[in-house]
């Protein structure tokens, strides 16, 4: 049987960063519960890779495995992909509008009033997020740090649980299954919203039956404030999972018999 397997990873980022581990903080789920995958929506998922072969033993169907990753605490995945960027621009426009009309406010009488009101406007707009690169340098993304409601996130005022986390990313897939040539992972581009432009995918050799471990390399992002700058600092972690590869002779899905013409009259 040809298969397209989707494996979804959900990470509780606050808990993972607190524990410095993904243990009990990652949930994996695939679309093959009824086809033999076990331990769905837990950290111990074993994904069924059900292959088929022709009479001469060669692989009969293509198997594709896709990995997606997301976090529990974030803006809804149903929002358009450019929402964060669009909303950040709207917040910035609103800030500029408020500054521009600052002098027309009726309660503004003194310079101190202006200073106070200006400070309040700047606090309302929240912080623009920076990312820390491999050299440890911070680059401004222009994206406002938001809460799960799409409003600017204010540390100290908002609770940590309100924070809309930066989506985690998969950076590599390695391990036994890759070393033994059971799966051949690559990173590909995609327009699908949840995948945020990129996703990891692999083809599988179902001739190599057995249970194989593989390691998913994941980067989480921890929000840090220093000198008035908000930065997403990468935190690298790994998680092991398993694939159970089986193979059975190719058969007719309608007749359950050998491959031949369908029994149409």
């Amino acid at each position: 049987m040809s298969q397209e397997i989707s494996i979804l990873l959900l990470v509780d980022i606050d808990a993972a960063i607190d524990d410095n581990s993904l243990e009990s903080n990652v949930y994996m789920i695939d679309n093959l519960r009824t086809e033999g995958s076990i331990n769905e929506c837990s950290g111990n998922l074993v994904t069924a890779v059900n292959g088929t072969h022709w009479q001469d033993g060669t692989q009969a169907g293509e198997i594709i495995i896709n990995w997606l990753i997301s976090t529990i605490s974030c803006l809804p995945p149903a929002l358009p992909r450019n929402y964060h960027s669009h909303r950040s621009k709207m917040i910035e426009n609103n800030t500029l509008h408020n500054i521009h009309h600052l002098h027309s406010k009726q309660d503004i009488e003194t310079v101190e009033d202006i200073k106070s009101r200006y400070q309040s406007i700047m606090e309302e707009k929240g912080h623009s997020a920076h990312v820390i690169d491999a050299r440890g340098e911070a680059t401004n993304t222009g994206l406002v740090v938001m809460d799960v409601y799409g409003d600017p996130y204010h540390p100290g005022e908002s609770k940590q649980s309100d924070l809309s986390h930066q989506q985690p990313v998969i950076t590599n897939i390695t391990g036994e299954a890759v070393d033994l040539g059971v799966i051949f992972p690559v990173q590909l581009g995609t327009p699908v919203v949840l995948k945020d432009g990129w996703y990891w995918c692999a083809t599988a050799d179902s001739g190599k039956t057995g249970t194989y471990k593989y390691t998913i390399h994941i980067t989480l992002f921890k929000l840090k404030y220093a000198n008035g700058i908000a930065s997403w600092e990468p935190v690298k972690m790994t998680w092991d999972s398993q694939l159970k590869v089986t193979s059975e002779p190719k058969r007719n899905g309608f007749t359950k018999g050998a491959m031949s013409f369908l029994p149409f009259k």
Partner: protein
Amino acid sequence: MKNRTISIIVIVDVVGALASGSLKDNIYFIDNNRKRGSEKEGTGELKTKVEMGDHLIWNILPLEPEAFSQLVDIVIDPEYVEKRILTFKDSDITGWVGEVRKSPDILPYQLVLKLGNEHQEFITPDSAFIIGG
């Protein structure tokens, strides 16, 4: 001071639900509150631990990203949780949020979902809970 927000992700196997005609075994709940007492994470029987004043926000995540899924209602006792639709600013996307008005011992609730190209309506088995204490 804002109250604490607990995010609840609802993963739906849309194809599984459409094939079997039921959400049973095709829905999984996870929240970000395990460390503060939520139980049965990653199952259809999640027990989310809450305190009075907490906010809850539900997000639907289809297992197949291309499949249509929408949360259209939450059936929950308003004496304990006041639900409302939230429209995300600068968008026309809506979500469901709830405010815990009274901490229950244990309170079951159900989600009403529309799934698939024909927007078929499903209701979750009466098995996800809010717990207090």
